[in-house]
């Protein structure tokens, strides 16, 4: 749609994140010589899988409505249910079935979010905060979920690998799990839907101007509800991928992941006020934060500094985009004033 030109590129936040990533990579490489090694790159990809899946949830929510903080607990509860059912059934067949069960429950929970947000127009942050707490109560209170070993079908899937590399020098090996394919499939589907279907364009349209979207003929309520249902499904996939990759289910490991994911998505150029955000940005933002947390140790920074760095990056990144949008906001304000 938009013809690529440097001028246009310069206007995109994604472009700057990309530059920072390159600079950081080169810096780490120079300092340690270990960045562009096959096992480090594979490790990086591996660590990106689950946050990138969650990033889709955050993106869809921000573009259409506002923050969604419920995806970690939807992931926890739906993957618990799927894992538990598969275990009880002693299920040994293809793992797809387990994913379908998880998605079913995830979408059900997403539907609850969507219903409350669409019907009452409450801020999505507060609603999803409330439902997260409910899901957490159901998971740990009603089901008394505990650590679980994976059923055979999931364990088998987890043991398969897409790619295994061994660093010739250090002898360290890294594997890229099959869940990476799931990530690719999700992003391809998301790309096609967001860019080539009217529903996908509707997600952006309603985030840009809800009233205009309604007048143009988009079914605003259905689209918004749909976004939260889909988010539930994606969260479930993310949760199952996480369990599969760690080869066990641990109910307490999910909560708290939402903030980093949201930060990654915002760093990637998604606008908190809606209507703007790309898949490219999601991946770049996630990559940047994953690099920081994975690679600090390579340049000799103690692991204990990790949070400080991540915090600083979030603050600097959002400050830059806030200052950028302030100049944007002044223009907007003027236009609004003029239109009033």
């Amino acid at each position, binding site marked *: 749609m938009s013809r690529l030109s440097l001028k246009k590129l310069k206007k995109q936040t994604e472009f700057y994140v990309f530059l920072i990533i390159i600079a950081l990579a080169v810096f780490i490489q120079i300092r340690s010589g270990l960045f562009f090694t096959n096992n480090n790159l594979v490790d990086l990809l591996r660590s990106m899988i689950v946050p990138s899946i969650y990033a889709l949830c955050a993106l869809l929510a921000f573009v259409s409505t506002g923050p969604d903080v419920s995806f970690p607990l939807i992931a926890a509860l739906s993957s618990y249910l799927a894992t538990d059912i598969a275990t009880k059934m002693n299920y040994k067949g293809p793992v797809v079935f387990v994913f379908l069960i998880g998605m079913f429950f995830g979408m059900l929970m997403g539907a609850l979010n969507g219903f409350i947000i669409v019907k009452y127009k409450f801020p999505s942050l*507060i609603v999803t905060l409330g439902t997260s707490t409910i899901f957490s109560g159901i998971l740990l209170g009603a089901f008394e979920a505990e650590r679980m070993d994976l059923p055979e079908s999931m364990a088998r899937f987890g043991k398969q690998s897409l790619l295994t590399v061994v660093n010739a020098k250090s002898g360290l090996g890294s594997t890229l799990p099959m869940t990476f394919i799931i990530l690719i499939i999700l992003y391809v589907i998301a790309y096609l839907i967001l860019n080539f279907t009217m529903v996908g364009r509707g997600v952006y349209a309603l985030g840009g101007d809800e009233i205009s979207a309604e007048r143009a003929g988009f079914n605003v309520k259905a689209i918004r509800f749909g976004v939260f249902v889909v988010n539930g499904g994606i969260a479930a996939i993310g949760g199952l991928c996480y369990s599969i990759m760690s080869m066990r289910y641990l109910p307490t490991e999910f909560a708290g992941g939402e903030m980093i994911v949201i930060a990654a998505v915002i760093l990637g150029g998604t606008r908190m006020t809606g209507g703007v955000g790309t898949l490219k940005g999601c991946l770049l933002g996630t990559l940047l934060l994953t690099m920081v947390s994975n690679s600090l140790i390579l340049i000799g920074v103690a692991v204990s500094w*990790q949070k400080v760095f991540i915090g600083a990056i979030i603050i600097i990144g959002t*400050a830059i985009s806030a200052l950028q949008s302030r100049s944007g906001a002044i223009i907007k304000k003027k236009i609004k004033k003029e239109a009033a």
Partner: protein
Amino acid sequence: MNRTGKKIDDNILRLLVVLVVFVLIACTTKTSMFMQVGNFQSIGKQLAEYGLMALGVGICMISGGIDLSTVYIANLCGIVSGLMMQRLIPQGEENSGIVILAMLTAIVIGALCGAFNGFLISKLNIPAMLATLGTYQLYMGIAVVISGGSTVSGLPKGYTALGTTLVGGIPLAFLVFLVAAIVLSFIMSKTKFGTRVYLVGTNEKSAVFAGIKKNSTLIRTYMISGVISAIAGLVSLARINSAKADFGSSYTMQCILIVVLGGVNPNGGFGSIPGVAIAVVILQVLSSYLNMFPDISNYFRDLIWGVALIAVLIINFVINKRKTARLAKLS
């Protein structure tokens, strides 16, 4: 009595009724366990930490923002003053001068952390949610670095005794909470600063045009939240005799829940501190009550709180709808 005053009273009245009903239910169904001085004392002790933080989150939300960093400010302050006491006072000795110095340091750090939040939000225009999301990582990170990621413990007895001190049968921690709630209520309802916080929370731009120093008002608001968090950190340091960088991470969400339950408008501009304080007590009574059923897992509290939050939102929605309908007819 004017209408705005009356509206706040309505909300507080509702919360009080809920509180009384819960206490009555608890007293009648679990008489022997609930109706004990010890039980009420432990209720008072337990609510102080997150209760204090909720007050801080409450004023930030009234100012049109949110503070996600309170828990980590509390932990950072707890760690710093804990380390000071641990290093400066030889094992087994007591030195109240250093204890007080350590406490003051904690409060100064809390104020600085809060002021930094306020700076990011007002001067740099970063949305409050994102700014405090970043600083919570930052403060937690600093706490990890300072403490080396381990638990700070081994505090002088004189200080940890404060955690169990009773003043006239009332836990000291609860008194701290009560005083903070009263002082904040006064600030918010009876000072020009408080009034300005409400106005900035209603419409920042109009506030600027009306001659309110928006930036300084916001910075002071977040500073207060930081100071209260520091106090919460000190209370928890005394109670559990230790501090850790990632202690109480679930408090963040809990605080937001309490604040909304207490009637603060998530969009800013409306809400009252007494409402938040009562909501804190309600939740602690409820969870203490639930603790008395050995069959019911602790985690059920989460379920109930989440349902309560959504229910309160919907109830407020319906009430407000009626009210606007009435106002529309009036005008």
